[in-house]
C-alpha cells in the first residue's frame, strides 16, 4: 500500500522574474512511497528535491496535481496537523531546526506542540535521544555540538513526534565522513528496527545505494527510478545528465567498454573487489 502518493504535480515559486518563461521547480512528477520503504531521492542542486520534500508534509501545495499522505489529500486544510504528525521533515540546516537552548527541551518541542501529556513527553524524548545515540548529551547546548550531532538531535526532535515517515533533506551535506556514517547508520536502524518509512534526499550516489529504491530527479522531472542496481546500471543516461555513478559501478562500466565480461554491476567497493577477483582468477 502506498503511504505517500504524488499524482502529476507541478509547482513553481512565484518570485521568478517577470518576462522570463515560468520555470516549474517541480514539473509533472508522479511518485509513490510505500510504508516501511527506504527511498533515496537523488539529483543535483536545484533540481527540485527540497521543493518536492516540502510537498510531502504540506509545507507547500502543488499548483496542479494532488498529493496524498496515508489516503488524505494534502489540500484538505483540516488534515494539516495529522499529516505533519505522520510525515516528519528534517530540513537541511540543523542550526535552524533546533529551537530550544537545551538538547532535551528541543526534542520535547514537537510532542509539546501535539499536546502530549508531560510524563509521556519525557518517555518519548528519552527514547528518541537513545535511538539516535545522543542520550548523554541531553543537557547540552545545541550550539556546542558538532554538525553530525546536531543533525542527530534534529532527527530525534522529529522522532519524538512518533511519525510514520521521516523525510530528510540532505542530512549528510556539510558533514565529515564520520558524521555521515553516524547519520546514515541511525537512519538504517530506524528503518529496520522501528519500521519507519525513510525518504533520504541526497546528491551523494554512494548514499543512494543504501536505499531500497532510488528516484532520480533532474530539472523538476523524474529521470529514472528503480532498485539501486537497476538505476546505476544506466550509466549512460546518468552521465548525460551530469550525474555521477558510484566509483565501483563506473570502473566496471569502463572495463565492460574495454571488452571485459561482467554479468552485473557492483554498487559498493566490496562487491567490486569480489567481481574483479573472480575475473582475474
Amino acid at each position, binding site marked *: 500500500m502506498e503511504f505517500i502518493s504524488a499524482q502529476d504535480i507541478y509547482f513553481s515559486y512565484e518570485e521568478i522574474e517577470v518576462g522570463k518563461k515560468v520555470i516549474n521547480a517541480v514539473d509533472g512528477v508522479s511518485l509513490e512511497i510505500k510504508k516501511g520503504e527506504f527511498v533515496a531521492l537523488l539529483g543535483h542542486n536545484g533540481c527540485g528535491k527540497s521543493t518536492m520534500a516540502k510537498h510531502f508534509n504540506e509545507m507547500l501545495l502543488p499548483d496542479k496535481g494532488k498529493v496524498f499522505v496515508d489516503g488524505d489529500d494534502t489540500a484538505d486544510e483540516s488534515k494539516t496537523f495529522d499529516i505533519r504528525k505522520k510525515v516528519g521533515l528534517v530540513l537541511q540546516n540543523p542550526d535552524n531546526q533546533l529551537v530550544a537552548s537545551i538538547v532535551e527541551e528541543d526534542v520535547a518541542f514537537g510532542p*509539546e*506542540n501535539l499536546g502530549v501529556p508531560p510524563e509521556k513527553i519525557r518517555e518519548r*524524548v528519552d527514547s528518541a535521544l537513545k535511538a539516535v545515540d545522543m542520550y548523554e548529551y541531553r543537557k547540552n547546548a545545541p550550539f556546542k555540538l558538532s554538525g553530525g550531532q546536531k543533525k542527530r538531535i534534529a532527527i530525534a526532535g522529529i522522532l519524538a513526534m512518533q511519525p510514520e515517515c521521516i523525510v530528510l533533506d540532505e542530512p549528510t551535506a556539510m558533514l565529515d565522513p564520520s558524521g555521515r556514517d553516524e547519520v546514515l547508520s541511525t537512519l538504517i536502524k530506524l528503518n529496520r528496527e522501528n519500521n519507519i518509512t525513510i525518504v533520504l534526499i541526497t546528491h551523494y550516489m554512494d548514499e543512494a545505494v543504501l536505499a531500497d529504491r532510488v528516484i532520480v530527479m533532474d530539472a523538476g522531472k523524474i529521470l529514472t527510478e528503480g532498485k539501486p542496481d537497476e538505476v546505476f546500471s544506466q550509466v549512460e543516461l546518468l552521465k548525460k545528465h551530469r550525474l555521477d555513478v558510484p566509483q565501483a559501478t563506473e570502473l566496471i562500466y569502463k572495463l565492460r567498454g574495454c571488452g571485459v565480461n561482467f554479468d552485473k554491476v557492483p554498487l559498493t567497493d566490496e562487491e567490486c573487489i569480489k567481481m574483479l577477483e573472480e575475473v582475474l582468477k
Partner: protein
Amino acid sequence: MVRDITLGQYYPGKSFLHRLDPRSKIILLIAYLVIIFCTFNYLSLLLVTIFTALVIAISGVPFKTYLKSLKIVITIVIITSILNLFYGTGEPIWQWWIISVTANGINRAIFVTIRIICLILASSCLTFTTSPTDLTDALERLLKPLNKIHFPVHEVSMMMTLALRFVPTLLEETDKIMQAQKARGADMEAGNLFTRIKAMIPILVPLFVSAFRRAYEVATAMECRCYNGGSGRTRMKVIHMTKRDAVGFIGVALIIIGVFICNIMMKKVI
C-alpha cells in the same frame, strides 16, 4: 572576543537553587534587587553582601563564571563610582581646583559599587541556575493574567526562547563574517569614529540578510514540528512550588526584614 558574553548561559546542576521553581526565582530576584537599593547604612549593606555571597556559594556554579559576568560591567561600575565620588554633598575633605571629595561622596561611591556588583551577581545566579526555556516558561506563567488585556504572552515568551537560543549562533556568525572581511583586507580598528562605523557596514549587511533568512527557515522548521501557537500545547517539565520554595521565600523575607530594621535603627549614611 564576542563569545565572552555569558548572557543566558545555563550551568546544569542539582543545587538548591537549580531545583527552585523558576517562578519563585524570578519573584525572589525582583524583590531582592529592590532591597539591594534600599540599603542606606553599612550594616544593611553588609547583610546584603553576605546574603549574595551565600547564594553564590550554594548555587554550585564556579566562582570564575561569576567573575566573567562581572568583567563585562566593570567599566560601568568604575565610571559610576568615580562620578559619585565627586557628587557628594556636605563639607569637602579634599579639594583641588573645582574637584572636591566629601565623606558623603566616598560613601556613595562605595554603596554604588557594592550594589551594582550584588545586582549583577544575583541576576547571573538566576540565569546560571535556570535553563532559558524554564525561564521563559516561568515568565509566560507569571504574565498569564495579561492575556485578559490581549497581551500576547505566549508569543512574547516564545520570541524570548528563540532569541536566547540564537544569540550564540548569531554571535558566532558575526565572528565569521568579521574574519571573512578581515581576510579581504577590511580594516576595522583604524581611522576616526566615522570611518570605523562605516567599516561596520560590510559586517552588518550580511549579518542582517542571513538573520532574516534564518528566521524564515526557523519558522518553517517550527511549522514542520506542528507548532501552532500556544493553545493546546503541553510542557515536558511540570513546574510546581514545593517546600524548597517556601525556604527560599523565608530566606529573602528575612533579609528584607533585616534591611528594614537596620534602616530604622541606624542613621542614613547616603
